[in-house]
């Protein structure tokens, strides 16, 4: 059982602040590091993996600093975001080389087991350069598992995977977590994180915005005001009906559309078709106005 502890960690590059006073503890189980692109996820993972010095604060693995300490790599396995691997080698050679670099007692056995775990045995004889993105991701995963680390850091591990590969990786992460390993992965997709993570840490613009289990964060995200733009055959009548129905807390009428702000995501979405049908109004277009992840996150930060 291992834990990574970040205490008041900041990291800046020139005058760009990539991580701003972050304090968190990553313990056994699966933790999802969620945030939009550029939120500082990679910076945090780099610092946890000992590839980047914190500008301020401490990053400890079981009480020992990760920076300038290659001994941590006996405990930590890292799946980097970079797609570049040693393309001219076969998957088997690459995983075996990693096992040899770890100076394992039985490198062949360890490499075979790691390749089995990621389901790449059939393609292990091919050069990495010929692999698809998902296969590369899995062979990278194998290199990080070869020494059976108790901490696994994965930077955007699901990117480029098809749904089947995604499910397979999720199963693999779950079984590793069941063995008591500490697993942290980053992602900018909420659905991905909530399916597999026990704990979620949300990063927005370098700040640690929220922390906890996914239900709590999901609620925070869905209970914020939702804005919609609606076009219909009779905007004025529709606006009146929405107001009367009561699931929206603000309605404004523009010449060609109705702008609605609903406090409860679920009830407005269910009510709208029903009341349009009753008033015999045809809905032409319903568009959520600010569903981008960034706006969801910035709402969280503003709270």
């Amino acid at each position, binding site marked *: 059982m291992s834990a990574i502890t970040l205490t008041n960690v900041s990291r800046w590059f020139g005058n760009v602040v990539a991580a701003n006073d972050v304090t968190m503890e990553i313990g056994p189980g699966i933790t999802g590091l969620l945030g939009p692109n550029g939120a500082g996820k990679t910076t945090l993972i780099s610092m946890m993996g000992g590839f*980047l*010095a914190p500008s301020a604060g401490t990053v400890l693995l079981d009480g020992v600093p990760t920076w300038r300490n290659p001994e941590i790599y006996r405990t930590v396995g890292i799946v980097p*975001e970079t797609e*570049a691997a040693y393309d001219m080698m076969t998957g088997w050679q690459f995983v075996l080389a990693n096992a040899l*670099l770890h100076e394992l007692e039985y490198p062949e056995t360890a490499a075979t087991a790691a390749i089995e775990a990621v389901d790449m045995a059939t393609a292990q004889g091919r050069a990495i350069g010929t692999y698809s993105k998902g296969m590369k991701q899995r062979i990278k995963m194998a290199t990080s598992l070869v020494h059976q680390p108790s901490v696994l850091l994965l*930077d955007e591990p699901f990117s480029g995977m098809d749904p089947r590969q995604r499910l397979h990786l999720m199963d693999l992460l779950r079984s590793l977590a069941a063995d008591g390993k500490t697993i942290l992965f980053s992602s900018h997709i909420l659905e991905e994180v909530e399916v597999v993570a026990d704990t979620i840490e949300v990063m927005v613009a370098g700040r640690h915005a929220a922390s906890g289990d996914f239900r709590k964060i999901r609620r925070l995200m869905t209970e914020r005001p939702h804005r919609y733009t609606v076009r219909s055959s009779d905007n004025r009548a529709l606006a009146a009906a929405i107001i009367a129905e009561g699931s929206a807390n603000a309605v404004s009428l523009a010449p060609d559309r109705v702008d609605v702000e609903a406090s409860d995501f679920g009830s407005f979405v269910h009510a709208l078709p029903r009341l349009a049908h009753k008033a015999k109004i045809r809905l032409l277009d319903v568009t959520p106005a600010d569903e981008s992840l960034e706006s969801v996150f910035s709402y969280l930060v503003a709270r």
Partner: protein
Amino acid sequence: MNLVIMRLTARSLLGRRRVVLLSLLPGVLLLVAAATRWGSDADPWATAHMLHNFAMSTILPLVCLIIGTGAIGPEIEDGSIVYLLAKPISRTTIALSKLVVAVTTALAMGAVPIALAGAVSGDWHWKLTLAYGVASALGAVAYTTVFFTLAILTRNAIISGLIYALLWEGVIGGYVPGVRVLSIRQWILAPAEEIAAPQASTWGVSSQVGLSTGLLLLVVTTILAAAFAARRLQTISVRGSE
């Protein structure tokens, strides 16, 4: 030293297509040497001239630049160096293992062909072969180490290296005497001048620095560069594209 790292480095340095391209430089040198012999009737003066103005000033720094930077630069550039760094191996071992492979390759692709070129082009009692063989071997070690370190320091290592080798040593060194003293080429020519004596001045084998000064500066520069490379690798920052 770590054998796995050395094998990986040799593999990426001498990949199938790379080794063909890399052999072009010594290949051209040997062709020029043969042509020189044919054109000058194996005159040692012509050999010395060819080695001095072509082999030592162009081929050797270029070979060392390609090999020295190629041994680590691409891995830093694309981030795959992470696979080496994320291992319980000291960064000094990583740096030195790679450097040893680079220097060995540079000796084989730079120093050996230059000595051969001396013999092919026309020599007198193996004097020039030995003189330039020793000089280019010392050069292979010093240039490769410096360019290797440069590749860890900056992503523009090839451009910086070219500016150093061609502009500083070649052009500026031709006009400003002080600059000549501060260039690896002059330091490695000092032992060549000593070996080629007493014919050195007839053949035009000359260095701006004395033998002991040249050797001392070579040793100090090489050791400092290697130590700096190992040190920088300890604190190298590896980040994704974010």
